[in-house]
């Protein structure tokens, strides 16, 4: 018994160290956002200030970058979710000998270093779009190249997420609908898509977040434009100011809020499910009671 409590203590200690490693640096950075010195310091705490948040709000390049990041993120969602969906469907139907190669080609961008994806995107599209003056002027832009480059691996994330759910799809539903006279597009829109909806939503969220955070591919593909992350990289390279800490505080705050909302919703859902189970049990018992009473008659 004693050795078990020692073990428990050790596990607790280890988990505490693990999360200290994850959260410690972020916590220290958050403190620096509210401290007055020009150089971000947590200790000594010289005075409380919100100036760095005001400076962040007035930082033109960062706001411009944020706006571009949102546009690119939405573009990546618009490209990679439909592509991932189409690829998942093709994966389930493709000629069996070609499946291995298809899988390799579609999943390879996940393992390829982002730097290489960025470089190849720029080299390839510079020549493709540079063929005529018109295409060069309209399409050879950082935002478009960033969407193309990021989509190449984000679509693979979508594929993996959607495929996992598609594998649980019961083909009999499709057959039933077809037998009842539904057309193929009707089956797709009214049966397959509603079934895949949770996977499509999580694919879209993951796509937006990974686009928003991406540095390695974007720093090449963005050309002369900027995203929030490339602006940040420039700032960190030049030196450190608490303005960056202020931005981190906002992001951490938003993530924590999202996580808490998720947890509360999950708990409520569980409580509801529990209550429904109780009710079902009660109903079952009363059914049995009636049946018993009926048996006595």
């Amino acid at each position, binding site marked *: 018994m004693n050795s078990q409590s020692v073990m428990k203590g050790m596990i607790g200690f280890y988990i505490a160290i693990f999360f200290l490693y*994850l959260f410690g640096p972020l916590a220290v950075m958050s403190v620096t956002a509210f401290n007055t010195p020009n150089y971000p310091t947590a200790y000594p705490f010289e005075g409380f200030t919100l100036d760095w948040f005001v400076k962040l709000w007035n930082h033109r390049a960062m706001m411009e970058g944020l706006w571009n990041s949102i546009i690119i993120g939405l573009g990546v969602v618009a490209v990679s979710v439909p592509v991932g969906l189409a690829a998942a469907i093709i994966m389930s139907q493709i000629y069996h000998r070609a499946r291995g190669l298809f899988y390799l080609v579609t999943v390879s*961008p996940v393992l390829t270093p982002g730097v290489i994806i960025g470089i190849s995107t720029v080299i390839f599209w510079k020549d493709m779009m540079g063929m005529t003056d018109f295409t060069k002027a309209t399409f050879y832009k950082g935002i478009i190249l960033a969407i193309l480059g990021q989509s190449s691996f984000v679509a693979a994330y979508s594929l993996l997420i959607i495929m996992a759910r598609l594998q649980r799809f019961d083909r009999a539903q499709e057959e039933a609908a077809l037998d009842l006279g539904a057309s193929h597009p009707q089956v797709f829109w009214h049966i397959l898509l509603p079934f895949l909806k949770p996977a499509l939503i999580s694919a879209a969220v993951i796509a937006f977040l990974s686009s928003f955070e991406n540095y390695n591919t974007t720093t090449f593909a963005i050309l002369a434009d900027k995203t929030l992350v490339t602006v940040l990289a420039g700032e960190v390279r030049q030196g450190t100011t608490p303005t960056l800490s202020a931005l981190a505080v906002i992001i951490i705050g938003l993530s924590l809020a999202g996580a808490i909302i998720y947890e509360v919703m999950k708990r409520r859902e569980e409580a509801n499910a529990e209550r429904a189970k109780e009710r079902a049990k009660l109903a079952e018992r009363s059914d049995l009671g009636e049946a018993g009473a009926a048996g006595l008659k």
Partner: protein
Amino acid sequence: MSSRLLVFLIPVIVIAIFWVMAKMERGVAHDPTHKGFFERNGTVLGVTFIVLVAFWTLFLVTLPYLYMVVESFHPKLPPMQRGGPDDVLTLEQYKSFFVTPTDGTWNTNHMSAFVFSLIASVLVTAFNFAFSYPLAYYMAQAGTAQKVRLIMLGLIVPYWVNEILRAFSLRLLLASKGLINQALMGIGITSEPIDFLSIDVGLYVGLSYAYLLVMVFPLYNAIESLDKNQIEAARDLGAPWWKIHRDVVIPYAKPGIASGCTMVFMLAAGSLAAPQFLGGPSTLWFTSIVYDFFFQAFNWPRGAAYAFILLAACIAFVMMMLRLFRVSLGETIK
């Protein structure tokens, strides 16, 4: 221009080969219940699927990669001369990795940066595995459902903060005026601040910190599906805890371990943020060299050649390790 045109022919040939194979097979074994692709999806949707997937696999994946490889076999030329008589196939970019083009001596700078990047990535991968394994095991086998969900959220939340800001936060901690040095000097362990960044501590910590999550999740997924009874059985038969892990859990979770290690290694070897912001001033990281070829020397072919060397070496290394531990590639990317 002709060598670049070749790039477009390769996918066409590969697709044609598979198409012919499919046709021939259907001719040999005819299955009356088999439905064609367009029959199953309807023509409009079928065409849409194919167009979307073709655009992705050809224009976003295969063609850019192949194009980059072809570019790396070309000399660096001003834009006007591209496609002209001087634009010939050459190995000079690859040669420049071994021999410095200007003075003909061994290019030890770049070669040692290359070796250093790979070794550092291996070390980071090993550390992350050792550090994440107990947590993944705890989440998969020992924790209650609610605890696991909390841990999961705790793991994900820090990763919504982007890579740059996380590197920045570590820099604040490890800087010579940072909190760790203040603490060390406060306790009296050192009297002078330790420059963690220039002795590469920052680099290692940064890489490990950046990709910790990438290790935890595959491990968790793999261990989670292991039947608890197997561990119980081993324990009842008197196996000590380390033997249970060595003989039951690790062999079972091997595909997940391989997948986590592969991902962390590839990401670390190709990382840019941690070496740029946490590496010491004299530390040469291979992707940073590639970055400089693009943004400072404007030598795209040489940058492409270096990028290809990195990719080929990483793939070769991963394949070798997978073979050594007897895991198939298919299991790894599931």
